[in-house]
């Protein structure tokens, strides 16, 4: 009887100790995640701005009956920025994926100079995005190397004003993103590719599968989990596209390359309407979280069937 009674008490002891041990971490999480989130939610319900002349904790006096959210629903600039972000994502992520997969397939085999090409290929990823932005800003000048190259190819002088044309500017921005982030895709997919059991590929070959059939029936299914991870990382990262783009175009010409991050940045630093900014940021956080949860679920399901 005694031992039976002792058990719940012991468990309580263990729970208490566990709570105490994790307390510092809990406080940390509270400060870096929960607190800012609540603060954001609070501000997003008010007209508070740094120019209000009062601390954010007094924002309740500027309560605006969800006006920020109703404004957001009809903010054409917000919706077009969101659409533009989506376009960049829909174009960039698949291209990065396909290029990365092709390169990974190439690098799965041995060839002379592999190590050097490998290092060169990974370099864009190491460049500070701001530096990459400045680099592409220079490349796409009307007298810049890109036009020089096009001139050399076409045989007549090309002077395209890349960054001043709404469509071309968006293309230039996407080229920069693809240049910088294909290596990450390549690296993740290569890790997945070398993990595909070689004897299963050999077995497929012996059973008469040609290289394309082997790729579709063995390699891709085995890489499913890692492909989902790679895509999830890039979709989330790409949604937040900012530094390279901002240095290249500043969101311009006009608002032609203004993505969500750029729009928020401008509202924060130029318009200073922080209540509204908080509302936008919160809305996006919710959308991204739903996407992330969806990806995680797919991942967990894929993990149930280990390769």
């Amino acid at each position, binding site marked *: 009887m005694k031992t039976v009674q002792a058990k719940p008490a012991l468990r309580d002891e263990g729970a208490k100790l566990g709570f105490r041990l994790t307390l510092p971490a809990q406080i940390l999480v509270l400060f870096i995640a929960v607190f800012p989130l609540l603060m954001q939610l609070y501000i997003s319900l008010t007209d508070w701005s740094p120019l209000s002349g009062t601390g954010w904790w007094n924002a309740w006096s500027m309560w605006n009956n969800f006006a920020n959210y109703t404004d957001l629903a009809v903010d054409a600039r917000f919706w077009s920025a969101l659409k533009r972000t989506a376009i960049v994502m829909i174009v960039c992520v698949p291209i990065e994926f396909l290029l990365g997969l092709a390169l990974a397939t190439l690098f799965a085999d041995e060839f002379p100079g592999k190590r050097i090409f490998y290092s060169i290929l990974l370099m864009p990823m190491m460049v500070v995005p701001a530096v990459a932005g400045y680099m592409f800003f220079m490349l796409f000048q009307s007298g810049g190397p890109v036009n020089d190259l096009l001139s050399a190819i076409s045989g007549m002088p090309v002077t395209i004003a890349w960054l001043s044309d709404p469509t071309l500017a968006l293309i230039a921005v996407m080229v920069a993103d693809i240049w910088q982030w294909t290596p990450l895709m390549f690296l993740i997919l290569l890790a997945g590719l070398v993990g595909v*059991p070689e*004897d*299963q590929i050999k*077995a497929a070959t*012996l*059973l*008469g*599968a040609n290289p394309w059939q082997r790729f579709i029936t063995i390699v891709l299914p085995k890489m499913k989990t890692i492909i989902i991870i790679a895509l999830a990382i890039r979709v989330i990262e790409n949604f937040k596209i900012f530094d390279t783009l901002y240095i290249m175009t500043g969101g311009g010409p006009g608002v032609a390359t203004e993505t969500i991050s750029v729009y928020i940045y401008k509202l924060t630093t130029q318009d200073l309407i922080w209540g509204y900014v908080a509302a936008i940021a919160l809305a996006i956080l919710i959308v991204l979280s739903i996407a992330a949860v969806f990806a995680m679920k797919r991942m967990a399901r894929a993990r149930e069937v280990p390769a």
Partner: protein
Amino acid sequence: MSAIHLQNLVKKFGDFTALKTMDLAIADGEFMALLGPSGCGKSTTMNMIAGMEEPTSGKILFGEKDMAGVPMGRRGVGFVFQNYAIFTHMTVRQNLAYGPRMRGAPRAEIDRRVGAIAEMLQLTPLLERKADRLSVNILQRVAIGRSAIMEPAIFLLDEPLSNVDAAFRAVMRTELKQLQRQFKQTMVYVTHDQLEAMTMADRIAVMDHGVLQQVGTPLEVYNNPANVFVARFIGSPGMNLLKGKPAESDRGLVVDLGPLGVTPPLPDALAPAVRATRGDVFYGFRPEQVALSDRGLTMPVSFVERIGARTIVHLGDGESAVKAVFENDVGLAIGQTAIVAPAAPSVRVFDAATGQAIKAD
């Protein structure tokens, strides 16, 4: 159905010669085991038959057809990998259907063939199972079925039992042998485990250091090893080999083993050939064919191993160590002296210089 001929087969990897030279004829429908320690070139030979590796020189013929340049997918060879290489992301059915599907067979035909193979291998109730959670013997059946559905003339098995625990191996051996009888294909089986080779194979090709040492039925290889390597390698424990000089005695030709004394007289059939040999010889006899006697080799007992009913007595040490296997406890203990006599018909003599067996004329 197809016979396999290996002619002057050589394989080099850079400076390393994996296979020095190999001539082997495997008959149609035969179960041939390639047996040898790791690094002997048996897997290399198998990979070349499958087409996974190209020979450096020499020919591989299937029947009359030269396989040079024929890619591995077109050789009509079934291959069972060491770990079976089952497609774990597919069901058993998808695994079995893989070959026909890749060749674009019509759906109805695939279903019919999968059904037939599954029935034969008793896989029917497991067809819709995912292949990543199957027990080893089922994995083996799926691996065999997946190849067998292509109706290959030749089946190659690369140490399929090496990942299986010892108790289960006996079950798998029986099953494999039965499957071979069912399919009647030519089978080449690579293994380093002589027990597998002995129990399953029609003939065994013993290999060492990239050289084929001997080809023969399990009993031939056991009873009449072609050389010292085969004598030591086959059998568990291997054949006892004692170095000595042939010498005449009043009882006939014997081998003078130096400090161990002289052996009992050699069989009359062997004597002339041994007389013709110059230099030292190895006097060989199976540990199982030793009797305790009052005349024979007098040696100290250095160790006694009891394995169930069997007793392995280790006698002497170093160069002149001898093992004797008895079916029951003979009451010997460490430190005692035993007089052992090899059964005369089991005695084999090898030329110490060349390592080759000296055969009776």
